[in-house]
């Protein structure tokens, strides 16, 4: 994939800024898509088989702890997806990046589904453990706010006749809502919550056995790669839809 408009010494070097070109991104994404798909599937299979059948049950929670292998990665991806949304918003508002608005439009629904699944799996884990489907504690409430932020972003994108106004309004909401992310992260430290504190920390050893940590890591890797694969497919589709609109407008 060489760009002959560049000097010869730069033609074979991969320059990340070239990904801003929709045509180049489309070709690049088409090539890496199968690799991401296979890697995601492999990590997920390893993580789920290990977590469901070979990792030990918790001494207190029994087999319910196995919900952790989907709930925790979903929770991390919910926040990570919104952070990606905020980065797209920044790129759109400040640098007018050509793909930023499309990327934000395609990340939103995936992030919303992931956040909803985080809340649902959390409820299904909480009912047998806490005896309740829901409590208005800081962690759960802030993740619910995150879900509403995702829905608000999707709604704003389609709320205006002028698509550019929709993109701008959604980008502003994405940037304002990013303040929810540290609240989600530190809620279990700042308030007295029913939700358990963080297991992983940069300053001390994790309070989890390695027999559970490895399948959790593989599940997270699989779901993260799956998230990237899904956004990649959707972004390719959005770029092609834009090409179709251009062709139809020129006819």
């Amino acid at each position, binding site marked *: 994939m060489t760009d002959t408009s560049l000097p010869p010494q730069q033609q074979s070097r991969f320059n990340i800024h070239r990904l801003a070109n929709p045509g180049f991104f489309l070709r690049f994404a088409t090539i890496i898509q199968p690799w991401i798909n296979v890697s995601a599937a492999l990590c997920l299979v390893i993580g789920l088989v290990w977590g469901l059948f070979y990792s030990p049950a918790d001494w207190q929670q029994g087999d319910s702890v196995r919900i952790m292998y989907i709930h925790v990665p979903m929770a991390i991806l919910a926040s990570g997806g919104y952070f990606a949304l905020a980065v797209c918003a920044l790129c759109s508002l400040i640098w007018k990046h050509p793909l930023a608005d499309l990327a934000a439009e395609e990340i939103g629904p995936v992030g919303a589904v992931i956040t909803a699944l985080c809340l649902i799996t959390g409820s299904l884990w909480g009912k047998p453990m806490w005896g309740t489907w829901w409590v208005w504690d800081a962690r759960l409430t802030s993740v619910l706010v995150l879900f509403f932020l995702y829905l608000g972003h999707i709604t704003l994108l389609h709320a205006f006749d002028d698509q550019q106004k929709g993109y701008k309004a959604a980008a502003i909401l994405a940037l304002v809502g990013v303040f929810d992310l540290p609240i989600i992260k530190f809620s279990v430290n700042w308030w007295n919550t029913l939700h358990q504190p963080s297991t992983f920390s940069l300053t001390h050893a994790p309070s989890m056995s390695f027999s559970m940590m490895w399948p959790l890591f593989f599940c997270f890797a699989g779901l993260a790669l799956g998230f990237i694969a899904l956004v990649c497919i*959707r972004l390719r589709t959005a770029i092609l839809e834009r090409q179709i609109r251009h*062709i139809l407008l020129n*006819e």
Partner: protein
Amino acid sequence: MTHLPYLIAAYGITIIALGTISLHSWTRLKQVQKKLSQLQNNNKPS
């Protein structure tokens, strides 16, 4: 009481939701690729 129904429900809902959005995204891509190909063939000079 066993907690197995909660475990099955959690994994089941996750698989259905992620499977649905993945399938929808993939079929949308295929439809768009087909439409673009048709438009490009129509616009080719004969």
